[in-house]
């Protein structure tokens, strides 16, 4: 399936809609829904960060949870141990930590493998990170880190206390909007198109002078950094960071979001993250069969609609003119 491009005005429209919906949520929903709203916004970034490497550069990673956990643990550690560091710098450093881990993983694995083989290596590295976290005293071992408080943003002339009311929620919405916008620029610009050529026809891209390995590495580092930034936003939101975040099952989440929404679409993981949360939320009281229902529904969607929900919508819209033609032919 070809990659669907999205016009700037359409992107701006969708983003405006998402931001408005995000800002309205605390006024109409209860505390639990608002919390889930923040998680969904973070998951949108998590999903797009995965999809940009998967769909644009053809890098299938089964270990993105390690980048998420890196960001979450880095922020959690700095907030609890060195709170004097400005919070925005903490987030930036957490993103850098994710980028560094992605760089090391890429240097180790990308030149030697691709496709499923690369996916298996990322799965192994992810599990290694998971085990390492459970062994490190300063990261709280199996118990994780608690008391990750929401800090204050200090802009010298004024301060914003993120622990008050819904201020951290709004911070998440705005931060995720910025991150999604940056990822969209990189998805759509020359860099994104160069990644596309690497995926579509690596040999031809090589002949045309594109350094394929370099581009793949850049895509992985970008994906790792963005995922770690999502993790960094998550830590003060949940106020607890545990090794579960690095577990392989967490790595399946962005893949599910992308498949559910449609991997060919920039907003595919966004739609997937929203639908997944709605499914999970509405089956939460069905104790014992909740996971089964969510899993079964996801399987059904993925099997019945391989292009995801957005792929289905696109095909429905594309079919409409044909119907009108048929009607005209039917009644000449």
């Amino acid at each position, binding site marked *: 399936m070809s990659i669907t491009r999205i016009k700037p005005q359409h992107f701006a429209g969708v983003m405006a809609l998402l931001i408005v919906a995000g800002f309205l949520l605390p006024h*109409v*929903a*209860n*505390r*639990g*829904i*608002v*919390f*889930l709203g923040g*998680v969904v916004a973070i998951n949108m970034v998590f999903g797009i960060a995965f999809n940009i490497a998967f769909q644009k550069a053809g890098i299938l990673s089964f270990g993105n949870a390690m980048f998420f956990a890196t960001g979450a643990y880095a922020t959690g550690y700095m907030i609890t141990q060195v709170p004097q560091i400005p919070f925005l710098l903490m987030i930036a450093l957490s993103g850098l930590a994710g980028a560094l881990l992605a760089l090391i993983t890429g240097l180790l694995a990308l030149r030697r493998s691709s496709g499923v083989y690369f996916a298996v290596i990322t799965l192994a590295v992810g599990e290694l990170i998971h085990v390492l976290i*459970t*062994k490190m005293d300063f990261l*709280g*071992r*199996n*118990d*994780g880190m*608690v*008391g990750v*408080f929401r800090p204050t943003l200090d802009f010298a002339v004024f301060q914003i206390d993120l*622990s008050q009311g819904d201020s951290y929620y709004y911070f998440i919405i705005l931060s995720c909007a910025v991150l999604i916008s940056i990822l969209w620029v990189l998805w759509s610009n020359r860099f994104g198109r160069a990644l596309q050529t690497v995926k579509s026809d690596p040999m031809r891209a090589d002949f045309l002078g594109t350094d394929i390995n370099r581009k793949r590495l850049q895509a992985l580092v970008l994906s790792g950094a963005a995922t770690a930034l999502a993790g960094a936003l998550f830590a003060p939101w*949940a*106020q*607890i960071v*545990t090794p*579960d975040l690095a577990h392989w099952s967490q790595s399946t989440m962005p893949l599910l979001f992308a498949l559910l929404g449609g991997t060919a679409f920039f907003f595919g993981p966004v739609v997937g993250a929203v639908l997944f949360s*709605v*499914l999970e*939320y*509405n089956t*939460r*009281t069905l*104790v*014992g069969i*909740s*996971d089964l229902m969510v899993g079964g529904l996801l399987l059904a969607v993925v099997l019945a609609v391989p292009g995801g929900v957005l792929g289905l919508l696109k095909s*429905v819209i594309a*079919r409409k003119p*044909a*119907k009108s033609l*048929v009607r005209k*032919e*039917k009644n000449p």
Partner: protein
Amino acid sequence: MDSRVRDVRITTEEDSMTHLKRRTVIGGLGASALTAPFLTRTAWAQSDEPIKIGVVTSLSGPQEFIGSFVLNGCKIAVNQINAQGGVMGRELVLEVRDDRANPADATAAARELIGLGAHLQIGTISSAVALAMGPLMSQEGGVVITCGAGSEKINHENYNKHVFRPGDGPYMRMRAQAQLMAERQPEVTSWTGIIPDHEYGRTTWAVFVDGLLEFYPDIAGVQPEIIDPIIVPYGAGDYRSFITQAARSSAKGIYNSTYGGDSVTLFQQAKPYRLFEDRILMDSANEFIVAGALGTQTPPHWTGIHWYHETNKGNEMSDQLYADYVEMTGDTTPMGWLAEAHAGIYAYAKAIEKAGSTETDAVISGLKGLVWQTVTGERTMRAEDNQAIKDVELIYIEPKPDTEKGYAVTDYVKVEGTSVIEPPSPGQAVELRSPT
């Protein structure tokens, strides 16, 4: 041409019909799914409306076997209280959520329930979740009563006035176990441990050692020999190398704080090595979990238990809880978490009556210093650190091939809580004795 057009038309009609139905269904489901969370916002508690208690516990996943006891304990307590006229004339109702033993799910559910008016919550089993609940409840204005969360940090380093533990904490439980060994087994003076590699495991061992170092010289008149414990991985499938390591140890007493399925695997694998045949085995908190799984293969061992109905026979509340539980489930072997939840709900009921309000601050004030009757006797919620003072119960389980279950409780004791509880020190870690 005509036939092609007809074919296309027919296909299109069928498609549109199918799509219409699918859209209607999906749209309907989607609309109800999206609106359902918002409809409940009108359900704010009024003064004459039922009092909502939120139950957030593990009803699926690895801790489901504990969560089911917690939920049943809550249900039975609520039924009993409502049958007696409720609390201040108001019924108690439960809003139940599954945390799947996942901190993120637990915190999301806790927040949601507060939004629904259930700011008084109960059911936390996991230590990590219990520790996360403090800041969350402070921020959102709720209260939580834990049901078996074992971390000592709950009432020490991470003390938070919004979190209460109505059961025995690790200091009481492990020190009571050490005291019992000093009394019953004064000749067993060398001890080692099989300790899972996480904070709960290390805490239990450190406190047990503290108890050994205090009670053996005091009661048995000997200095115990503490041999380095064997640290085993959490959730491992193969413990044989650790078992051989323990079998080589000169220790005559083994303290086990592995848990649930890990203990079952370990005890089963230890059988051919005869690890427990000539040693005393003291188990931290498995209650009937290991015995229930291994039956006649169960090694004889002492284990800590939150409540054992035989120990408390004659206590009307205990007898009633046992009868109600058996009637509700048909199971004749309830485990202690049932009583923790039961005691927690009664604590809420008494605290609300004492405070005359269900508001968060009033209930916190009501719970602090509360003295209330439970299935294990009277308990006092220590005002300084929200830790209950209660007697610690221990049972001795032996294999009995001639019984239906393959095992039987052949001894049980109560250790007075005040003799083993640590002094309150909210915000600070307790200093423990360690071998020189």
